[in-house]
C-alpha cells in the first residue's frame, strides 16, 4: 500500500490511529497505553542485580515487584516499550528515510555542536522527565492519552502542568529566535 511509504501522515490520521489502538488496548487487551512505568521497573531490576535486598526493602519497587499480588516484571508494557523503536524503524524504512541526528539544529544554534554536551543534556533531561512522570503517576501516554480519554482528573491536571512547564522551559532555553530553527 502506497500510504505506508509516505514519509509523513496527516497528524489527524495518526491521532485517529492512536485512538483506535487505545480501543483495542482497553477492550481487547484490558490494558491502557503507557510507557513510563517500564524504565522505573528496569531501574529496579538493574539495582536488584547489585543489591537485591535494597530493592526488596524499597516501598516503590515493592508496588511493582510483588509476585504474590500478580505483578510481573516482563509484562505487557515491557514488550510494548521493546517494540516501540522497531515500529518506528519499520515506518522510517518503508519511506526510505535516512535520518540520523546527534545534535539537533535548534540545540546547536544555542549550545553549539558538541556531541558530548548534547548527550549529557539529553541524559539529564531524560532523568528529570522520568522522575516527574513517576511522581505524577504517568507520562504523555499513560496520563496524556489514556488518562485524557478516560476523563481522569489526575491526567488533565498533569497534562496542563507539563505543557505549561515545557513551554516556559523551551522559551527559557531557546527564546523566540529558537522558532527559526524548528
Amino acid at each position, binding site marked *: 500500500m502506497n500510504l505506508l511509504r509516505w514519509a509523513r501522515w496527516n497528524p*489527524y490520521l495518526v491521532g485517529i490511529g492512536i*485512538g483506535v489502538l487505545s480501543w483495542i488496548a482497553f477492550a481487547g487487551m484490558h490494558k491502557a497505553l503507557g510507557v513510563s512505568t517500564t524504565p522505573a521497573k528496569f531501574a529496579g531490576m538493574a539495582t536488584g542485580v547489585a543489591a537485591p535486598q535494597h530493592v526488596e526493602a524499597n516501598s516503590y519497587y515493592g508496588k511493582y515487584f510483588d509476585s504474590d499480588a500478580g505483578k510481573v516484571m516482563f509484562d505487557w508494557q515491557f514488550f510494548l516499550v521493546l517494540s516501540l523503536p*522497531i515500529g518506528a524503524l519499520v515506518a522510517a524504512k518503508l519511506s526510505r528515510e535516512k535520518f540520523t541526528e546527534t545534535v539537533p539544529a535548534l540545540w546547536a544554534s544555542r549550545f553549539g555542536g558538541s556531541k558530548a554536551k548534547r548527550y549529557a543534556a539529553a541524559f539529564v533531561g531524560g532523568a528529570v*522527565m522520568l522522575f516527574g512522570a513517576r511522581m505524577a503517576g504517568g507520562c504523555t501516554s499513560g496520563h496524556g492519552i489514556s488518562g485524557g480519554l478516560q476523563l481522569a482528573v489526575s491526567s488533565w491536571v498533569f497534562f496542563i502542568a507539563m505543557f505549561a512547564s515545557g513551554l516556559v522551559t523551551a522559551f527559557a532555553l531557546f527564546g523566540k529566535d529558537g522558532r527559526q530553527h524548528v
Partner: protein
Amino acid sequence: MFDLASSQMIVYGLLAGFVFGFLLQKGGVTRYRVILGQFLLKDFTVLKVMFTAIVVGAVGIWGMRSAGMDFPMHVKNAAILANIVGGLIFGVGMAVLGYCPGTGIAAIGDGSRHAIPGVLGMIVGGALFAEVYPSIKDGFMKLGDAGKITMADVTALSPWWLIAALGVIALVLFVMLERVSPGSAGSAHGERNIGVGHSD
C-alpha cells in the same frame, strides 16, 4: 522478581508497541524539532495528534462501555499536588530532552542518536524517584488525594457531555491551528532537517 507475562500478553504488548511506534514515526513526533516546535508554539503537530487520539479514543471506549461491553478502566490517582509538581518537573525534562518517554524510545528506531542517552537517563530518573518515594509516600504523595476520579464524577455530568465538549474544543482548536500551522510535521516547514542533523 524476573517473572514473565503470559505468551498472549507478550504478543499483545509487542503488537501494541509496534503499531504505536509506527504511528509516532509517521506522525513526525519522533523528531526533536517537532516536539520543541510544539513547546515554542510554531509546529502544532503534537497537540493535533494528542487531541485527536484523546477524542477518538474517548468516543470508542465510553461508547463500547455504554453498549454494555465490560472491560476495566485505568484511571490514575488524583493526588493533585503530585500530579501538578510531577507534571511541572516532567515538562522541564521533556523540553531539555526533546522527547517524551514514548517518543524518545521510539526515536531510537527513527535514527536519533541523542535519544539513547535520553533513555538511559530515564532509567536513572526512575531509580532516583524510587529512592525518594519512601520519604514522601505518606506526606507529599497523599496531599490533595481524591482517589481515582474522573471529570464525570467531579461534575456529576454524563461523560458524553464532557466528551462532546472536548470534541467541540478540539474542533475549534484545530480550525484555528490550521490557520497558524497547516499540514503535517515536516511538510509544513520543509524537509530540510531530514538526513542532516549535524552528525559528526
